[in-house]
């Protein structure tokens, strides 16, 4: 019997070690991280979102490039259904907007320098989302457990706000960010601000430039808001007005740090996309092949292009014209350009022309062309020569609509490599005039898509998503 009670004691003694079970704290992932590690993630993230699959799809849709194989070939002929889960989930809403929301939640009170930057980056990302998809989660998005199934807000509400629905406009979001930047901040970014190295005055320029971009985007639908916004930014004279101030996100030359244009085109999918014959023809018609050669390679000495949607056998990979070092860097280190001086000049040209904002449209127009040519690395002599030999190209003339066409066509060339911006302008203005691709398919083979289809994961998991999804030929609010 003694033995039994001894064993029972042993039995009980095992049960009383509470600490034994207290081992459920992850050694693998930190429960909290400083702002200095979040800001680089969100900044790279927005550049990655801009330059990865959304860029490939939009670059094919605007016929900068032609898809030859795999996904890009499908996008090229408007087969977009089922794509962009990774972009929506992991480049815009997940990782990026969620982390920006964390910066805003945690630092608005003590270190508004971080929340200010976060609001500007957030406004840019939301604008990408609504410009591509239209009605998207916005006012309830990226807030985790607060809203597991966010509402889809209308594009007009996202841009203009809607007090009754509690929707702050993108313009007000930017203004709130600009206000944060000038508040006293306990922590200020330094090298963790990989774009401006902690110079908040440059972030203010970035914010004001965002206002210009948003204003021109809605100028078809709300010209008065567009006009007043642009006029006020011009008056403030604190926007990106030189190439040195461009909001461009740096990348690295080593594995893991290279930009997506490089890793896709030069490493992982070398045979998927190449120069579009249609862009080549446009550049040739404008005698603009010197600039084109900064964007696209000529491995065999001449441009080798491919017609969008063609089923012909594509030229051998080694001979194809693909993105050049301006976009990819020698080994992936080229920055991803998000907001630029040339963009601003073209916006101001168009606004002066169509909205009557201050300044001379032709001056802005020529400044835009010059800024673009300088940006891609043309020499002063090459630029001067182009201006000298192509006066009709570099001078606005004709009706307002014809002049607008000139502006947007130049902007379209300047934005090669950033298909999202070119796609926005195309849908807003109809320029440049693009023909349907060969063998068009997709939701409507007779219309160049005017929006992206909602992504399968969002459709499957969010009961608030519009169902059935709108077809890709249904125009967005801002579009012409």
């Amino acid at each position: 019997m003694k033995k039994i009670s001894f064993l029972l004691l042993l039995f009980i003694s095992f049960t009383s070690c509470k600490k034994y079970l207290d081992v459920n704290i992850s050694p693998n992932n930190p429960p909290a991280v400083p702002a200095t590690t979040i800001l680089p993630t969100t900044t790279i993230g927005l550049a990655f979102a801009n330059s990865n699959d959304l860029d490939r799809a939009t670059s094919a849709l605007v016929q900068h490039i032609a898809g030859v194989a795999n996904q890009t070939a499908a996008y090229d002929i408007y087969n977009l259904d089922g794509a962009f889960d990774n972009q929506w989930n992991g480049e815009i809403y997940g990782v990026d907007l969620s982390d920006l929301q964390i910066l805003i939640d945690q630092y608005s009170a003590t270190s508004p320098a971080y929340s200010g930057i976060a609001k500007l980056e957030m406004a840019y990302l939301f604008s990408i989302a609504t410009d591509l998809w239209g009605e998207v989660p916005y006012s309830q998005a990226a807030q985790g457990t607060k809203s597991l199934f966010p509402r889809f807000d209308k594009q007009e509400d996202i841009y203009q706000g809607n007090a009754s629905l509690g929707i702050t406009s993108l313009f007000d979001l930017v203004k709130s960010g600009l206000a944060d930047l000038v508040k006293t901040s306990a922590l200020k970014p330094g090298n963790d601000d990989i774009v401006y190295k902690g110079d908040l005055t440059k972030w203010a320029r970035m914010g004001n430039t965002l206002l210009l971009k948003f204003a021109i985007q809605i100028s078809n639908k709300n010209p008065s808001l567009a006009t007043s916004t642009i006029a006020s930014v011009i008056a403030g004279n604190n926007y990106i007005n030189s190439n040195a101030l461009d909001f461009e996100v740096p990348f690295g030359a080593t594995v893991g740090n290279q930009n997506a244009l490089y890793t896709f085109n030069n490493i992982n999918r070398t045979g998927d996309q190449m120069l579009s014959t249609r862009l080549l023809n446009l550049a040739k018609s404008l005698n603009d092949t010197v600039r084109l050669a900064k964007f696209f390679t000529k491995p065999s000495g001449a441009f080798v292009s491919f017609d969008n949607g063609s089923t012909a056998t594509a030229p051998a990979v080694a001979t194809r014209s693909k993105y050049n070092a301006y976009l990819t860097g020698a080994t992936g280190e080229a920055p991803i350009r998000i907001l630029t001086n040339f963009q601003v000049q073209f916006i101001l040209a168009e606004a002066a022309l169509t909205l009557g904002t201050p300044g001379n449209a032709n001056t802005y127009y020529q400044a835009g062309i010059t800024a673009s040519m300088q940006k891609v690395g043309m020499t002063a002599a090459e630029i001067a020569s182009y201006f000298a030999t192509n006066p009709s190209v570099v001078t606005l003339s004709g009706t307002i609509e014809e002049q607008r066409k000139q502006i947007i066509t130049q902007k379209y060339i300047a934005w090669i490599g950033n298909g999202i911006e070119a796609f926005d302008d195309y849908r807003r203005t109809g320029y440049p005039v693009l023909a349907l691709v060969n063998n068009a398919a997709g939701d409507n083979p007779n219309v160049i898509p005017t929006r992206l289809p909602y992504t399968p994961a969002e459709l499957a998991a969010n009961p608030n998503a519009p169902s059935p999804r709108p077809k890709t030929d249904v125009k967005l609010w801002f579009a012409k």
Partner: protein
Amino acid sequence: MRKLLFLLMAAMLAIGQLHAQQRTITGKVTDEKGAPIINASVIVKGTNTGTVTKNDGTYSITVPANAKTLVISSVTMEEAQIDIGSQTVINVSLQTIGKNLQEVVVTALGIARDKRSLGYASQNLKGEELANKGEVNLVNALQGKVAGVNITNASGGAGASVNINIRGITSFTGSNQPLFVIDGIPISNDVDRTNSGPNGTLGDNQPANRALDIDMNNVESVNILKGPAAAALYGSRASAGAIIITTKKGGSARGKAEVVLNSNFSIQSAFGLPKVQNMYGEGTSGVFNSTSNNSFGPKFGSTPSLANGLLLGLSANINNVNYTAGQTFPYEAFPDNINDFFRHGTTAENEITITSGDAVRNQILSIGNVTQKGILYNTFLKRTTLRFGANTAVGAKMKIGGSITYTNTAQRGTIGGNNSGLASLLGLARNIDLTSYRVNGTYKNANGTNNYPFSGVDNPYFDQFENPLNSYLNRFTGNINVGYDLLNWLNISYRAGGDIYTDRRKQVFAISSNRVPAGNVRDEMFFRNEINGDLIIRATRNNLFTHGLSLTALIGQNINQRRFQDIAVQGDQLSVPGFYNVGNGAVFSVGSGEASTLRRLLGYYGQASFNFRNYVFVELTGRADKSSTLPKNKNTYFYPSANVAFVFTDALKINSDIFSYGKIRASYAKVGRDADPYLLNNVYVNGAFGNNVASFTFPFGAIGGFGASSRLSDTIPLSPEFTTSYEAGINLQFFSNRASIDVTYYSEDSKSQILNVAVAPSSGFRTYTTNIGELTNKGVEVNVSATVIRTRDFTWDLNGNYTRQRNKVVSIAPGVDNSPIPGNAFIGSIPSFKVGYHYGVIIGGVIPRSPDGQRLINPATGTYQPTVAGQVLADPNADYQFGVTNTLNYKGFNLGCTFDFTKGGQVLSFTAATYKSRGALDITAVDREQPHILPGVILDPASGKYSANNIQISGQAYWQALGGLQSEFNVYDATVLHLRELTLGYTVPNKITNRLKLAGIRFGLFARNVFYVAPNAPIDPQLNTQGAGNIRGLDLQGTPNARTIGANIKLTI
């Protein structure tokens, strides 16, 4: 080392010598019909001296001079006691025990039980039913032999992993692999995945599930506990069933030292490759193109012209020979160019087992080695196991035993999958002679870079030889147990054991590899350690309260700890070609890091088993677990089970030779399951973007980046999840138990699962850990066995099993229709669970259809309209399966064959798609040059009417329209019949072995995967590239299955 082994052997033989005696008695043991009884025990009464009969029923025993009586017994026979007197030859005929059939099976916690007392289904296999049949992975060897179990291997590569699910899937995202238990100690059957390439685990050929480390020659028996009822005492871990492995003990030879030598040699070859055409060669649209891997070029025998490209317009390299413009070149089919890529693999397996001792005090030492060369060049599997086990008694009341096994497993495999060299081999252009690249080593250029005419892909040999994944595993498993009889009805025992391994991996991508052009080296170490202890107090009382009622009661306590660590350092961007030290890299931030987990569990359990007159059995169990992975205030959970068995033939005294045994049984069980570690808090992860086509990983130079994990923790604390199961069964036996049928029906319901459920990605997160969702499983299992013929020299035994299993996703979460299964997947074919469907359906794009179900054609192209995403593309769940094993014995000869058949289920085959879209599949050559029309209809948008498609397209356009990797046209019905196993054995008669002074010689021939018939698939559809795990039904351009043919010899000394 060799000396030590010799000494050990000598010592063990010496132990045997202590029992050396003075008189030898020989004889034969037969049944009432004169058929020999194998393995009957012959013991000198009152001693531990004994032997067992051989395959012909004969025995030979040396007895002490003072021996009086021999006790002869066999499991199914009445025991006989024979006076020895002065006899030297004693032949015995035993009587069958008609109604007292006793089949001992090992149940949960290693408790041996009479099968008749069990109120739930379990199936028992003997070690010899598995070993020496051409399979080195124990899980594969179970294929076709067990009802209710699904087994699919990843490929025929050396040491490829194998998936096993018992009674389907019960957990949405948790492990659904059964618990593996060896001698009472749980061991790891995990798959540790390495892939430094951009494809993650889609890169094929992962090292094995760790049951591979089990040497089947050490296995005495395997008992499969199928449902929660059987496994209730194991608790959470066994909610997906349990595989209870009992290893061999030294005492079977009844006091005699015995040495068993066992050798196998077998040859493997690639199996299940599609049939190819040999009419058309490389090119597109009928024109030769030396850089195209499509076989849509000109017909072989065409007159060379510039138009068909056979008169070269540009210089080209064809089959490793340079030609200039204006030249022609040999243009002919290499019909075996795909087959010849594979070599004959070989497997040599050698074991030596030395045993000595008696039933109480015994030792066993075994050493085994398997050396396998894979069917792919430069792949291998080498496994060495060393095992020592011993049991002894201290005094009359205490028993002590233990064993320790050391395993060393080395494996080498290479990458496959999308864009790999292996994928380019599939449907290789028909005029490519790949062998030339291997024989001369010209798969690489002089500077070591990849040499292949096709871009965007490696030469398959380059991948094989230059991009290996190596695994070197060292593993110890062991247990020690002590039992003490406190009173004659009360026993207390403690069993402790552990499983510990480290697996050192090295994966290499050479510079210029398509997947990692800058090259990389990844050194990775996996460490797993599980420690388990059980304290068990057992009491048995007979004639409790009333005559004939006995009770066995048990209480126990379990302590379990599992530790896992995965540390990797990866060097990217190599400087020196061919130098694979991680220091040769320039970037170390991609893929380097650590993942560790630690989880602990305390369990308390009890069991009461009532037995009334050996025909009514009632059992109640209960277990309470405390887990470290649940919130502290909710970490204790209790779950009960009850089962009853009723042998009605005994109760009703049905005494018939025709209907000899009948039992019905029923059970109820509830099993709780805890969470995975670290799900209770939100965390941040290292910042990374992108996938296999473009990606970014922090740190960015010296700047670190972190972001919130895509998984959110619940704001409501997690609680354990439960599976409730009901099971009923009947077992009937006929003709003095020569024929038996056993039918089981079960129904399981798993609710409130701990699930990382998908939330709207626009919430900023992907998943949310919560208790939600419901899965049900229902099924029928049938086992049939019969001795069809039994004569003096000839027996024919038949065993069959049938499984029908239905799984249904009842609900996930409000508003959530489907959710992806965690793991890597290609967008467009995502293994998922979807409400109202079976678990594991593959969701992708499906071509839109007209109201009457015809596929819509694009009038502009004559090919199909683009797919609509988010549809169910394939369902991998089979309708039913059955397996049949025939065993024929004639004198010393033994012939066995196992068929298994799977009806239904689907596989999405990237492999078949590739053969099709490249124009290599045999059917793509039929009427190639005739116009083709895809079946379907065209919608006239004006009238809204549909008309039959009449648009003619080329053969190439036709086959490419049907050849999309993720297309519904490459979803195949996985119905397949396999002749899984064929064995022929011969046991040399005693007359001869005695002359050779041996105790037994057995020769065997075996073949595995002999043939298959898959009526609706161009490949062997029974493979699953991702191996063990919840993702099934994908063939992602991996290694094909392998056929094995070999021979075996077993010597007993």
